[in-house]
């Protein structure tokens, strides 16, 4: 004992003694006293519960790491799909041409032969950012087409100067005839077979070219098809430039040393040499020469050549991060092509399709990331709450020991230290196991450290949940708080406590409302790199809404339960009375919060998926315009073919001009012109959400000749049957009408200026088909003003439309992509990596929170099992049957679960309604506008059904747990023995 209080027994009376403080060493010993021993022994005793906590931490860590990783992988996959969809057209290329020099002629921008031949060196100049996504850099040199002479038919080996003028030309012609007589093709092409392509060909006969033979002949190999043209190893031939007479150049001798075929003719490396492997190549067989041979050929012929340095992209190597780098690099290349051409004169870089395509993809990424981050954060949040629930089990189990430690002089910090040390070990083990499991189950993607923004909350909750709850128990055990004697004062304190609670609850609700309003106002913003590109505010907002819903549920809960309890008390038997009392006492904030958040996450995910699917259906109608759209110059024939097909209810034929120039007198305006026939109104009427009848009537009137305006302002005189030479009566959409100040307009259509007269306006604007603004005209009248123009679009409606259109297209030999069905569009949309990935994450998140809800409910059941066991035993002494124990569990759990389902469903619906706009769902839907939020009663019903099943399982478990209770022992000990 380090200090004696003043005024101890026998001394002068004092009002207060002082706590002894001791030195620093003593204070440290007090806090760390026997920590190792206590932690070790206690952990051994609670091994099962600690193992369960560790497993839960591992699960939470797995979700925290795997979630963002799946998000990243999905975005990477979508990037890969984007690049793959571009095909070879997206490969960055540098092109060089060498042309025959023209003395004193203008600079044609062509490369000189030396630059041309140096193109292979440019392969090393590919920027680093591109190199990371490059499968190969292939150089193709097309040296042109030459007349074939039998060997000796010309002045070989560059002795060209002597073969000049007409004499040479004539000689070439004669030699060609000689070559034909020798069974050789009269023409042959020469191309480079780059050294690094040797592995991409298989040698059928002979060998690969080495360059130039000792006798000066250029070695070449020929494709298999060329062997049919009489070229085989050993064949020697002389090549003469077709315009050798003008250039004054001579011939090159070529010796065929081998026959080859491509290992894979469709491989990307042959994109610029695909023609060489085609069967048609036999007519002009390509002679593939080595680099030295090409140099020789060019030196002696000096004719036009065409070289391509193709950077073959590897779509699989693309990731989101690399795509960003590539876009930046390509933008630099666009402004400074020398980055790709090394400044070589005459080498140009054509506009690259890759950059804009990737940029468009990157624009969609924040929305997709936001959509995926919300369920991921929800799952992690629910997992963290379950962690708190399970740690509560641990702390409750140790409440007695903690109280005893306090009684023996343990300070709160020392209690926290011991629980914290244990939690540290549990979290370290759990996180390590979770990260390892994530590496196994969700390989790829960024390193686990990149998921710190989801992993950190899990670790923090795991570290703090037990110590903080333990500290609360330790403080409450020896509170020393004095209650005032004055009843009014006690009431005042109680009121103040209630006010503080109300203020906190109002604060939570206002915070959630503010977050929702703020997100709704500001919309989706770019990601923050610190959170892996996610929007942290958007991610947290749904959890805040769920928290607010829980707060409201806690307030509202007593009313319906009280009403139900009143009914229960009037029922016969003990069940109603006991159930009523248990239900009223059962409300625990933490389980309610956990179940509410879980239900909210599940409801949000399911409703978003439902909204997207409904939106995709609507978007498919917008984008296709009918069940089926056929785009072909044979539109009229297609229409005739499908019109009487079974299951076809409406057919419309149209001429579309999406970028027609509308002359408004003072200025011109790009507009979309749809010249439609009478069937168009019927096609519109068959849409699930058809335009108003007045609008359809206005369009129908165009074709019927009664083109009277539907709106007053811009109406002109009824035109009756329009004059074929006069202006075409048109109906314009309201957006365009607002910009018009005259009725007589003109439009430039297929090179013809066609006068128009506005006879009406319409709200119908098929923006899914064309950008607009829209001008509608009658097809027949429009065609009468144009020469040799045929309709190009057919819309077909009806259940048999797809089959009828497919048959017609097959019959007419139309390409496959000419027919576009609404169902195919929607299916294609749903199969997109981004769309499918988001939907998959939402559904998986729903399943995982369901599992976590089961765990939470289980933890809640276990937490109350002891007390329920005692109550059940007591009731059994009063005559209640043991097997009715499930009723107690049901009476306690059902109201909580019901409250959670209601609050969670409302919260989920609110999240979808309030934040849906900020989630950028139009990216997934692919429609014109952001889809309207669709709240499905089936989903809410499904959630309720799922909860009922969970509840029944929980009650069953409860019964199983108490099946072995021994009545006398439970009553004696005061707790269940299980």
């Amino acid at each position, binding site marked *: *004992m380090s200090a004696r209080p003043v005024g101890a027994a026998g*001394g002068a*009376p004092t009002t207060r003694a002082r706590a*002894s403080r001791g030195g620093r060493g003593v204070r440290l010993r*007090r806090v760390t*006293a026997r920590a190792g021993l*206590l932690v070790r*022994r206690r952990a051994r005793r609670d091994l099962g519960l600690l193992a369960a906590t560790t497993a839960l931490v591992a699960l939470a860590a797995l979700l925290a790491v795997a979630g963002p990783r799946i998000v990243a992988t999905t975005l990477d996959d979508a990037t890969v799909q984007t690049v793959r969809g571009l095909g070879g057209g997206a490969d960055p290329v540098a092109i060089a041409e060498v042309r025959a020099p023209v003395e004193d002629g203008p600079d044609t921008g062509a490369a000189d032969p030396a630059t041309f031949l140096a193109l292979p060196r440019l392969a090393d100049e590919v920027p680093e950012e591109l190199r990371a996504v490059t499968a190969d850099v292939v150089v193709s040199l097309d040296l042109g087409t030459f007349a074939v002479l039998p060997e000796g038919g010309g002045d070989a080996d560059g002795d060209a100067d002597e073969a000049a003028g007409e004499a040479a030309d004539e000689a070439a012609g004669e030699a060609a005839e000689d070559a034909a007589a020798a069974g050789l093709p009269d023409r042959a092409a020469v191309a480079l077979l780059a050294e690094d392509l040797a592995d991409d060909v298989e040698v059928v006969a002979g060998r690969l070219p080495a360059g130039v033979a000792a006798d000066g002949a250029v070695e070449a190999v020929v494709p298999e098809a060329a062997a049919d043209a009489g070229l085989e190893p050993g064949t020697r031939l002389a090549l003469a430039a077709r315009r050798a007479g003008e250039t004054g150049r001579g011939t090159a001798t070529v010796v065929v040393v081998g026959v080859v075929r491509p290992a894979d003719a469709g491989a990307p490396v042959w994109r610029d040499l695909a023609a060489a492997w085609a069967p048609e190549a036999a007519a002009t067989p390509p002679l593939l020469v080595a680099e030295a041979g090409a140099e020789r050929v060019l030196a002696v012929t000096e004719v036009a050549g065409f070289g391509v340095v193709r950077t073959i992209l590897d779509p699989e190597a693309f990731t989101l991060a690399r795509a960003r780098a590539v876009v930046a690099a390509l933008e630099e290349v666009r402004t400074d092509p020398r980055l790709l051409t090394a400044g070589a004169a005459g080498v140009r870089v054509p506009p690259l399709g890759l950059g804009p395509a990737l940029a468009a993809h990157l624009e969609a990424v924040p929305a997709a990331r936001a959509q995926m981050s919300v369920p991921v954060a929800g799952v992690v949040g629910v997992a963290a709450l379950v962690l708190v629930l399970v740690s509560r089990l641990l702390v409750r189990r140790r409440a007695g020991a903690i109280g005893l430690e306090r*009684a023996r002089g343990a300070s709160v910090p020392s209690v926290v230290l011991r629980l914290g040390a244990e939690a540290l070990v549990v979290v370290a083990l759990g996180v390590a196991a979770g990260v390892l499991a994530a590496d196994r189950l969700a390989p790829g993607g960024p390193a686990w450290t990149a998921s710190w923004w989801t992993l950190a909350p899990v670790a923090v909750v795991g570290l703090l949940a037990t110590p903080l709850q333990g500290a609360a128990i330790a403080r409450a055990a020896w509170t020393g708080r004095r209650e005032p*004697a004055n009843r009014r004062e006690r009431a005042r304190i109680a009121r103040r406590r209630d006010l503080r609670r109300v203020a906190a609850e109002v604060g939570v609700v206002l915070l959630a409302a503010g977050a929702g309003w703020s997100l709704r106002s500001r919309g989706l913003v770019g990601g923050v790199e610190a959170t892996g590109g996610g929007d942290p505010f958007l991610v947290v907002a749904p959890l805040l809404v769920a928290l607010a819903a829980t707060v409201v549920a806690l307030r509202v809960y007593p009313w319906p339960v009280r009403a139900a309890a009143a009914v229960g008390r009037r029922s016969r038997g003990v069940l109603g009375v006991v159930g009523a009392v248990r239900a009223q006492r059962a409300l625990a904030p933490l389980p309610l919060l956990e179940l509410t958040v879980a239900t909210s996450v599940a409801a949000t995910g399911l409703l978003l998926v439902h909204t997207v699917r409904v939106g995709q259906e609507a978007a498919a109608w917008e984008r296709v315009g009918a069940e089926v759209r056929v785009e072909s110059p044979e539109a009229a024939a297609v229409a005739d073919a499908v019109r009487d097909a079974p299951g076809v209810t409406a057919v419309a034929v149209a001429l579309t001009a999406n970028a027609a120039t509308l002359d408004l007198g003072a200025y011109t305006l790009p507009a979309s012109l749809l010249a439609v026939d009478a069937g168009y109104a019927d096609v519109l009427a068959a849409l699930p959400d058809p335009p108003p009848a007045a609008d359809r009537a206005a369009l129908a009137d165009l074709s019927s000749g009664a083109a009277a305006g539907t709106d007053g302002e811009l109406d002109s005189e009824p035109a009756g049957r329009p004059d074929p030479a006069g202006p075409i009566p048109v109906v314009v959409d309201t957006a365009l009408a607002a910009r018009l100040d005259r009725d007589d307009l003109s439009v430039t259509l297929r090179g013809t200026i066609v006068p128009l007269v506005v006879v009406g306006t319409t709200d119908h604007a098929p923006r899914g088909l064309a950008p607009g603004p829209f001008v509608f005209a009658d097809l027949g009248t429009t065609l009468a003003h144009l020469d040799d123009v045929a309709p190009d679009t057919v819309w077909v409606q009806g259940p048999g439309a797809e089959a009828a259109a497919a048959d017609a297209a097959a019959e007419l030999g139309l390409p496959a992509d000419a027919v576009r069905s609404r169902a195919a569009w929607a299916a294609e949309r749903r199969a997109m990596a981004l769309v499918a990935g988001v939907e998959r994450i939402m559904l998986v998140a729903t399943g995982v929170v369901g599992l976590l809800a089961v765990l939470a409910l289980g933890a809640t059941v276990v937490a109350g099992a002891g007390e329920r066991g005692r109550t059940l035993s007591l009731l059994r002494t009063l005559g209640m049957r043991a097997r009715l124990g499930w009723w107690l569990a049901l009476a306690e759990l059902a109201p909580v679960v019901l409250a959670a389902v209601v609050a969670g469903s409302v919260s989920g619906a609110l999240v979808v309604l309030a934040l849906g706009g900020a989630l950028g769902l139009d990216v997934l839907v692919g429609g014109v506008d952001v889809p309207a939020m669709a709240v499905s009663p089936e989903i809410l019903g499904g959630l309720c059904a799922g909860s009922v099943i969970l509840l029944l399982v929980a009650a069953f478990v409860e019964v199983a747990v108490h099946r072995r209770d021994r009545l006398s022992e439970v009553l004696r000990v005061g707790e269940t023995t299980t």
Partner: protein
Amino acid sequence: MTATALPTHPGAEGAATSAHREYGSDALIVCDNLVRIYQVEQIEVQALQGLDLLVHPGEMVAIVGASGSGKSTLLNILSGLDVPTAGRARVAGWDLLRMTTADRLAYRREVVGFVWQQTARNLLPYLTALENVVLPMAFAGMRARTRRRRAAELLDMLGMGPKAHRRPAELSGGEQQRVAVAVALANRPQVLFADEPTGELDSATGDEVFAALRAANTQLGATVVVVTHDEGVHTQVQRTVAIRDGRTSSEVVRRTEIDEFGASSVVAEEYAVLDRAGRLQLPKDYRAALGLRDRVRLELEPDHVGVWPDGAPRGGRPGRRHDERSER
């Protein structure tokens, strides 16, 4: 009951003459008009209704009373677990109404020790007896060697030395309670509180535990306060204080007398307690036997006060009304 007396504490006969001194200034434990009111929702329970109690250093006192009489509330207050609503409570100079959190911690570490009824509540099940005894000293910041020596001494003193390395589950109930006494004594507390320490034990084992408590009192000089239902406890302690309805109602004081033949005998005298306001509780059976109710007639005699039922015939001696005497 042999007499009605009004001692503020036994053996403090001169206390009434030193009125200028503070009430209980020489006592180790002082409860002065102690009130404890619980309020659960709208229900108010007055567990202590102005309880007075003095315990002097070195005493071994038992507090008895029916269930709900307030004895456990009193013990909770004295042990620092609860705080009284009003009145004054002081233990070894510590004002229990004004202690901070740090004071309470120091109070538990340095001033008091506890033994509870449930044996499982006294000891951590995963520590051995020795480790359990060491624990409070470790929490107090004592050095390892010192605390090990002290723990071994305590266990030896209480006859638990040979079983020092057993865990509670390997000990009988009485042994567990004796280890609990050792734990409570670990930090040399001035007061040892025991709440029904023999409640779960048979009488033979209970005697062993009481022997341990007596050892703490006599050998270590700790003041011992035991709360119990046990009717036979008065044979084990010097003083038994009975609590009824939140007030001390009576006391039984045991003292050893030696007669003229040299033979010693234990004499137990029961006292009614007169509180500081002059209130006196008459035992229920007294009231029943004499039909005392509502109001009684008092008569002051030279050496005692007579109490008569209202309406009873006056005695042979001329009586005077108490209030009249008091007025004069």
